[in-house]
């Protein structure tokens, strides 16, 4: 066997490497696109994006505004935090709301309390058209779900904002292609290669502030299909629901009607990292009422029979 002589140059830690890759991607967006925007919800992934944008562009200002598509179904802590953070960074925040699209008649609801996750895309496309954005930077990660594993870092969308898996550009080395014709646009995902654990480790390392609902707190919930459904004005308890008050935290933050918290006593980032490193359920599997999966505890037992 032919082992090359080891000349040991220093290398980056995995977090430094990921951070550097993300900064590189953000700077490519700035260098290649004429009118980008950064999608900012106040959630943890987009807060990581903001930190990376600071690292990429300070002492200058961000070469893009922050854009939030407000479903009107958000936890107020998250919205407050969104505004606080944008103000703290002294960057421009544009908010466009699904409510306005409903009023305009471009979003038609089947029922008043249905999840507005799906409808966000209409409002987003309207905002893209209004401002003429040619690129939207998002916090999507490839480890989130199967479909995302094949997502490009620079993902091409046609005039209808559609992702066509058959019509994606090959992505080689770190040579990204953000070229578009008028009306088309690019979604850029600077933290594609991060996992949920990487995100938490980075939050800890950078001592990033987060909305309080990411940390353990008492909340009234009901159990539905193995997931916890918070009791809120939008999602009131039904007559036969057993209402409980539990210590919970949110792993993801989205539309109130479809984002479930998990039982947890982790009240610091360090404790959340510990839980994340030892969790047995994927981020979406545990928290998305709209991805309905079956009971987890039972699966564990079933699984042990197989392996």
């Amino acid at each position, binding site marked *: *066997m032919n082992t090359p002589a080891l000349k*040991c140059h220093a290398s980056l830690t995995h977090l*430094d490497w990921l*951070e550097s890759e993300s900064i590189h991607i953000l700077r490519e967006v*700035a260098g290649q696109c004429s009118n980008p925007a950064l999608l900012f919800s106040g959630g943890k992934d987009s807060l990581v994006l903001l930190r990376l944008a600071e690292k990429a562009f300070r002492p200058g200002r961000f070469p893009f505004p922050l854009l939030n598509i407000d479903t009107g179904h958000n936890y107020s802590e998250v919205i407050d935090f969104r505004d606080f953070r944008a103000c703290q960074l002294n960057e421009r925040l544009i908010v466009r709301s699904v409510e306005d699209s409903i009023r305009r008649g471009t979003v038609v609801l089947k029922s008043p309390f249905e999840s507005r996750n799906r409808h966000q895309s209409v409002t987003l496309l309207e905002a893209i058209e209004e401002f003429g954005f040619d690129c939207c930077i998002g916090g999507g990660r490839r480890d989130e779900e199967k*479909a995302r594993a094949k997502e490009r870092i620079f993902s091409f969308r046609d005039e209808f904002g559609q992702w066509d898996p058959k019509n994606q550009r090959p992505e080689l*080395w770190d*040579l990204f292609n953000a070229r578009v014709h008028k009306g088309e646009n690019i979604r850029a995902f600077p933290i594609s290669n991060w996992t949920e654990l990487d995100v938490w480790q980075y939050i800890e390392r950078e001592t990033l502030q987060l909305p309080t609902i990411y940390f353990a707190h008492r909340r009234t919930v009901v159990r539905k299909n193995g997931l916890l459904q918070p009791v809120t004005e939008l999602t009131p308890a039904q007559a036969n629901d057993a209402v409980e008050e539990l210590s919970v935290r949110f792993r993801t933050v989205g539309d109130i009607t479809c984002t479930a918290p998990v039982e947890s006593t982790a009240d610091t980032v360090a404790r959340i990292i510990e839980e994340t490193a030892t969790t047995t359920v994927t981020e979406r599997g545990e928290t998305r009422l709209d991805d309905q999966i079956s009971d987890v505890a039972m*699966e564990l037992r079933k699984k042990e029979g197989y392996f």
Partner: protein
Amino acid sequence: MSAIEQLPEIDNGLLRFLTCGSVDDGKSTLIGRLLYDSKSILTDTLHSMACTSERRGLEAVDLSLLTDGLQAEREQGITIDVAYRYFTSGRRKYIIADAPGHEQYTRNMVTAASTAHLAIILVDARKGVLSQTRRHAYLAHLLGIPHIVVAINKMDLIEHSQAAYERICDDYREFSAALGIGDVRFVPMSALVGDMIVERGERLDWYQGPTLLEILECTPNAHSERDEAFRFPVQYVCRPRQGSDPNLHDYRGFMGRIESGEIAVGDEVLVLPSGKRSSIKAIETIDQSLPLAIAEQSVTLLLEDEVDVSRGDMIVSAGNSALVTRQIEAMVCWLGEVPLDPRRKYLIRQTTRDTRAAIEAIDYRLDITTLQKRPAENLEMNDIALVVFKLAQPLCVDSYAENRSTGAFIVIDEATNNTVGAGMIL
């Protein structure tokens, strides 16, 4: 000297690798096994795999389901392209680029290989070295992957025979020697039961070498093995000019990522393509001024002199510059569904620089199974050929063999804006 010690204390960093092989070779099972044994598959994913396995009448969970495409894609028979998977050993983070087979294989593998530092080439122990194996080895070589692991899988189906294993290793060495790949290792394994992947198992006792995971854990990081020339393509120029802060009034920071080598304050540099000389005044990140920075770090460089620098320029070490040229010869893999038309102009993007390019000649097309050179008028998807380009603007290049960043480019069709080719400069 002590500058390196000031860099943050590290874990074992990150390794990007590629798996080459078809489903029949047990590639999906191998990836599933790595993820499962490193406890990176979570319960709900495993459950849905278990349900599917049960529905298909299998006795155990089929780990290959993990890398199966989306149901819709399977139903529609769409060729799925490169998928990326992640796991951590606790000591190191891994990114797997998984390129499936099918007729678009070359294109997929070239894409997946472009960012990989190690390739696992799967061989079915019953079949030995096939023409497919040769193609994989050649493409791994073409894309400059420095570390190769030949995983001889399904040892359980040939009664764990050491003699058969040795024969396959010899066959592989025979043709790979000609390619000149430095670090090739062989591992006998059974992905189905997990022998020699994370656990050694008990059936391959005659094999004394490391398991697959041990090899992955010990592979040196990219850029750590040899001295490299400093290359810094400028991505963005920071000119804040904020009236409130007089210190920033004349601030001109050149932002980018160090693609290779390292740089220290005071080092003499050239700005390409102009060739203007200056030296490094400061290396900044958001909250630090660094004495030295290394490959893969994203930093902001400040120069001592007022030199005109913009996106697309490259800062290089004065003592070891890159070639500034208006003509390049390159091995090109054609990725587009529309064939290359030698009469047309294309756009070439290399580092942060774009230029229009005309095709001067297609010297030959390479049959990657036999390595025979054949004449070619145009190039179709998956073809690999030696192409000579004439450039409208100069590029600052190194040979790909020397530098995988400054030696690489993509070809863009301006009509569609699609990425239609990948090139490696000779």
